[in-house]
């Protein structure tokens, strides 16, 4: 059985044989041309760091950022998973980004403005060529698709299934609003459909669903609400741009002591009923069915990955 973020989730996150925890609760964006921020990022302990070569880098410094990230990956690679957001396929920087960064074996390349499955396949092909030339097992480096247009949202499932390398899909809210001829609002009403479709398509395709960046950094209350909404929708993690956002996301996505106790009780009741050959399982007067057992297993597996210790 597979749960909402359980067995399939961990299998996915471990596709690359990561040595770290297999959660992708936070993807922390770090400007690719800022050495101080690159060095410091690890200290905040996100689940994953993304060196950004795209929006955070001015057009005159694309070469400089690419070379800086190359040397950072070579010499000070953190003990956290690392990805690189490359420039879009329609830019003159795309191919050089892929050619320079791929041999350094980042955990994934994050492709902006992904709209069509052919784009994912083109990136897949290019990565495969470079992996082969550099004696990297083909398929090691994953792809994360950022969807930032109406067409991209429309094609989300096709993008997620365009290559076995696709690890996750997520919405890029600012560009999406521009494409939709609308603007961001506090309650994110304009993103409701896209947010819902992307998380659905991600789960249908068995890839991770990453929620969008919340850029109003000072609005901690709004951020917390936004994270909880995403989690409730089924998102498995969030892109973040400020260190203060990391612990909030980890806390929201972490299993509470109450969750863990309940999960343990569900599994204990299930094990007892199975041992006794009982057809009906109940806990505190409530029926326990298969999805509840799956969710209980997910909670304990997730807590373990997040470093929460518990007995039993």
């Amino acid at each position: 059985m597979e749960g909402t973020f359980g067995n399939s989730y961990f299998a996915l996150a471990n596709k690359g044989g990561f040595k770290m925890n297999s959660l992708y609760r936070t993807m922390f964006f770090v400007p690719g041309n800022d050495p101080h921020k690159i060095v410091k990022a690890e200290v905040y302990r996100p689940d994953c760091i993304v060196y950004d070569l795209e929006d955070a880098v001015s057009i005159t410094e694309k070469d400089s950022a690419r070379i800086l990230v190359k040397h950072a990956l070579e010499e000070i690679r953190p003990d956290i998973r690392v990805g690189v957001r490359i420039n879009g396929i329609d830019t003159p920087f795309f191919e050089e980004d892929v050619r320079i960064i791929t041999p350094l074996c980042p955990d994934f390349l994050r492709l902006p403005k992904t709209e069509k499955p052919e784009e994912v396949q083109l990136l897949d092909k290019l990565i495969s060529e470079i992996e082969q030339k550099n004696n990297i097992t083909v398929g090691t480096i994953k792809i994360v698709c950022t969807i930032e247009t109406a067409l991209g949202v429309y094609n989300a499932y096709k993008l997620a299934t365009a290559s076995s390398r696709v690890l996750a899909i997520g919405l890029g809210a600012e560009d999406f609003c521009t494409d939709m001829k609308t603007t961001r609002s506090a309650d994110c009403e304009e993103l409701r459909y896209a947010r819902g479709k992307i998380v659905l398509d991600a789960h249908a395709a068995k890839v991770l669903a990453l929620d969008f960046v919340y850029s109003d950094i000072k609005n901690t209350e709004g951020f917390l609400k936004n994270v909880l909404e995403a989690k409730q929708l089924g998102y498995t993690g969030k892109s973040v741009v400020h260190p203060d956002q990391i612990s909030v996301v980890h806390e929201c996505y972490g299993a509470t002591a109450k969750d863990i106790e309940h999960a343990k009780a569900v599994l204990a009741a299930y094990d007892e009923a199975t041992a006794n050959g009982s057809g009906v399982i109940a806990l505190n007067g409530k029926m326990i069915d298969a999805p509840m057992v799956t969710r209980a297993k997910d909670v304990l597996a997730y807590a373990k990955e997040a470093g929460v210790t518990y007995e039993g």
Partner: protein
Amino acid sequence: MLEGEKQMEFSEKAVVAGTDKKGDVRLTLEVFPNQSENKIVIESKVLAKYGKQIESVINKMLEQYKLAGVYLHAIDQGAFDFTWKARLETAILRWQTKVVSK
């Protein structure tokens, strides 16, 4: 490597890489192919402690690109080795693009 000398004469062919931000180093570089010696000026608060290390990083990078006659002015804001290497490589590639390829 020259310390303390802050004036270097560059032509319009010189290239710049890096910034004055914390943890970075800003380089101005020009190559005079008809000269054999390098002239390197570094402004850094950590020169006394890390000068040899910085010099070694610079020399290795210049050797890697087989460059001589290099004029290099660096203003260091506490850059790590990886940043020095990256900014040097950027400056060299920019110079090649700007001058050599034309």
